């Protein structure tokens, strides 16, 4: 009885639905992590060597604001030190950081729209929003498919290369204006927003665009009147999510030599003024937090309105 049941369970187990791909993926991921820690030359214990600990101690001493080093703590002195730093560099750099993030995300939205629209199969097809009623002439269909593939490839490339790298390359070509930072953030995020926008367009209901199309509206008209109002709330959410990361990245891009907060962080680092460096890093964190809060409020407004 029990043996028969066990045999039956064994049979069911062997014929259970399973996926080799999922199994292989899990094995590959675990293997990758194990390999990274074992064979990757990482020696965590080395962090606790005497030399490094001495270095850490020195660093912690230097993080104390300069006027207070080797003295008893005085809040007034500390505040004056922080205030001077803010007025001299911090506030202007913070404003520049925010300005870069805003300009970049607006640029990203514009470029993303240009690249994303032709990447949506519902828009870029011989018969938009219709499931191919009659097979159109091969060259026409081929051209549209090429457009979809081409715009997608450009977007993948834009987002595969990190912002920092783009900024480095642009900086060499354009010199130290704000453009390299804006372009780098703008193009990388255009790749992301374009992809998300194309997905939103493809997943949107086809009924309204089809109805408009039936009334004789052009492709652009359908996008503007039918598609955009439907997908706008979602696009705005993506816009603000990406803006948050833009703020984060804009801080850091300054380390390449653009006058955002990162520039002064790098400057303090180069002069070994670790007190200023840590203070400015914390200021950067504060800006990121402000950005997150503004974005959260804006996203809530958008959600409520839709």
């Amino acid at each position, binding site marked *: 009885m029990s043996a028969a049941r*066990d045999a039956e*369970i064994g049979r*069911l187990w062997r014929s259970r639905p399973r996926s080799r791909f999922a199994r292989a993926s899990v094995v590959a991921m675990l293997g990758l992590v194990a390999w990274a820690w074992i064979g990757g030359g990482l020696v965590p214990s080395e962090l606790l060597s005497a030399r490094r600990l001495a270095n850490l101690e020195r660093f912690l001493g230097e993080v104390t604001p300069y006027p207070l080093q080797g003295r008893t703590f005085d809040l007034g002195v500390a505040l004056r030190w922080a205030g001077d730093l803010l007025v001299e560099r911090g506030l202007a750099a913070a404003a520049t950081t925010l300005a870069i993030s805003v300009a970049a995300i607006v640029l990203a939205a514009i470029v993303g729209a240009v690249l994303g629209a032709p990447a949506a199969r519902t828009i870029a097809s011989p018969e938009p929003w219709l499931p191919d009623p009659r097979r159109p002439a091969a060259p026409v269909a081929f051209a549209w498919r090429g457009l979809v593939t081409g715009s997608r490839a450009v977007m993948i490339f834009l987002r595969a290369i990190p912002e920092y790298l783009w900024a480095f390359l642009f900086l060499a070509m354009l010199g130290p204006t704000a453009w390299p930072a804006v372009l780098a953030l703008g193009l990388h995020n255009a790749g992301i927003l374009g992809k998300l926008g194309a997905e939103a367009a493809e997943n949107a209901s086809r009924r309204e665009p089809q109805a408009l199309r039936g009334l004789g509206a052009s492709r652009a008209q359908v996008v503007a009147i039918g598609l955009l109002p439907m997908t706008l709330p979602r696009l705005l959410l993506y816009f603000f999510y990406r803006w948050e990361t833009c703020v984060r990245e804009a801080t850091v891009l300054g380390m390449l030599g653009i006058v955002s907060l990162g520039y002064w962080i790098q400057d303090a680092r180069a002069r070994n003024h670790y007190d200023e460096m840590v203070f400015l890093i914390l200021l950067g964190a504060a800006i990121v937090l402000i950005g997150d809060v503004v974005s959260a409020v804006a996203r809530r407004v958008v959600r409520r309105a839709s």
Partner: protein
Amino acid sequence: MSQPPTGSRFVLEGVVVRHDGGGGAPINALDGVALAIEPGEAVALVGPSGSGKTTLLSLLNGSTRPSAGRILVDGSDLTELSPRQLRLVRASIGTVHQDLALVPNLRVSQNVLSGRLGRLGFLASVRTMLWPSAEDLRSAHALLERVGIPEKLFERTDRLSGGERQRVAIARALHQQPAALLADEPVSSVDPARARDAVGLLRELSRERGLTLVVSLHNLDLARSFFPRLIGLRGGRVAFDAPPAEVDEAAFEALYELADG
């Protein structure tokens, strides 16, 4: 098998459950309910939606706390128990929820075996769920066989039909080795043709295992033909509590009449 000799005994004394109505005055989902359900009894709760059937069931399995009154399961007052003791009582009561409440992306075997988690420590739970013993699988397979879908043992739960999923939920409740079985609207998750089968199965299973059975039902015909005792609820109060023969059409109709004023 360590079957308890008899089912649970439930006693409710002056039970009130108050919900905070959204911004307005609090609403009494149950309002002074007193009743006793004896071991091995089969009871149907009938009444319109919002009459308090689901709330009553969630009191019986110890997942809702009464605002006033006492609930005794086999003599122990649920509101007085420590979390650990309460878990033991919960483990002795199997529930088939209205929405079935299975985990869709687990295998059927895992959903069935998860019924026993109340009786296991954490490490034993992990073992049962991830590396079930042959004994676990035999037990799950036997239960699935009893409810009619043994071949689905290792299927992903979300690939099953509604009726099959309900049977998984019943098997999970039975794998708890409960002393009582509760079912909330078991008819709502299957098509009407299967409704009779579902209620009949619950009745059979609890009879052969000596479980106390409490089922909430919309369908009065089903309640009448399967259960020796009907409890009518209306507006959170017991309207009647009697064998079907003593409940006439007028009493049923009164249950569904709109409350006036």
